[in-house]
């Protein structure tokens, strides 16, 4: 379920990004995996990536997973990237993680490490849990050097997401 509502926050929240600025300030991605007490708990499979305006994946940021059998349950991630590019997925794969707050970065590069042109992009976070649900967050942003401060409200498998970036100095 894509969370479409977003909120522009005062620039002060973008300071985190500004601290890392130079030469290009990365996009700071903070999100939460919620504590789930109902039913059997297995750590979710999570994929975080950036798509361009045509919804084509440009940069895989991180994947947290275990057995390949269940990779397909990250439906969009499977279709867009994983089914066709095993080496890329392997290179960005880490172990599954439990409830907590996590912080990732996007340096504005593509999967080949080249800086992407300015334009509209979107962050996608997809999470699926065995015996649990599937949740996807899709948030568009302008990648043109301007500051970014976006909050996405919590879903069932992905808690609050905060995107930030300091303006290019």
């Amino acid at each position, binding site marked *: 379920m*894509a969370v479409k509502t977003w909120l522009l926050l005062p620039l002060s929240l973008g300071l985190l990004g500004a601290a890392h600025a130079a030469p290009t300030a990365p996009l700071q991605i903070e999100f939460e995996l919620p504590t789930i007490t109902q039913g059997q708990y297995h750590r979710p499979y999570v994929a975080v990536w950036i798509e361009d305006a045509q919804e084509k994946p440009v940069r895989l940021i991180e994947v947290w997973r275990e057995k*390949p*059998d*269940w*990779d*397909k349950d990250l*439906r*969009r991630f*499977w*279709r867009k990237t*994983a*089914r*066709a590019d*095993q080496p890329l997925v392997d290179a960005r794969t880490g172990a599954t993680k439990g409830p907590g707050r996590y912080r990732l970065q996007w340096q504005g590069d593509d999967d080949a490490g080249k800086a992407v042109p300015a334009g509209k992009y979107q962050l996608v976070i997809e999470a699926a849990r065995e015996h649990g649900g*599937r949740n*996807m967050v899709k948030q568009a942003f302008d990648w043109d050097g301007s500051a970014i401060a976006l909050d996405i409200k919590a879903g069932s498998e992905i808690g609050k997401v905060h995107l930030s970036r300091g303006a290019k100095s």
Partner: protein
Amino acid sequence: MMKTTTLVLGMMLAGLTLSVQAHTLTVVPSHYVQSKTGSFISVDVSASNMTFQADKGIDLKAFHVVNPDNTAGKVLSSYQGKRKSQADVELKQEGTYRLELGGMPRFFTSYELDGKRERLMGNKQEAAAKLPKGATNVVTTQGRNRAMAFVTVKKPSDQVLAVTGKGLEFSFDKHPADIVATEPVTVTMLFDGKPVAGVELHLSFDGELYRNEPGRIEHKTDASGQFTFTPATPGRYLLEGSFMTDVASAQADKLREGFTLSFEAALP
């Protein structure tokens, strides 16, 4: 809720005795997508009135699997149940598999005798020897019916989707593994490799038993052969097609071809 397309012929072609009931044949895999080679799927094959609501198990003699490299796949075990039949298939290769029931053309000849419509199996020559004296309005139909599904392990491949240029076929504007709810899909109906008008298409989706309106879409192709639809919700869908045309051959007067294709529209 009865279907308007009757696939009586399809049941005959699948090796069944001719039934008065009109049923649609479906091939429905337990998974359309797998992320590991060497995994298994169980395939349900049945005849039904409501889409995906199994009514009758089907003889699996005419069921076969085509591997991504176009070699013949292996059915490990199968069972014909009262309501559905099931076949286990191992997916050893990466790519897209075709699961198919039927596919071989069959002939039947219908005629009138003493005011009654009768029929017998056999092409024109075979029928000529068997027809009773006084039979009139003799029409021989060459029929072929297929029930299909595509299953993809890891990266989708195109070999099993290739158009042969023979009979009724379809060509999608995207790979079946790329059909996603809310995104439009265009299928082009082909006859002998060319876009064809007059193909009757029905699109239906899972769960008819649990809603008042089946929500089926009917479409008859124009000269473009095209049908564009947008699966509104993720889930399993069934596309049915049938086409009839006159032929000038030594074996038949009419040609009738039909297919069903089950597929899933993935979560966006």
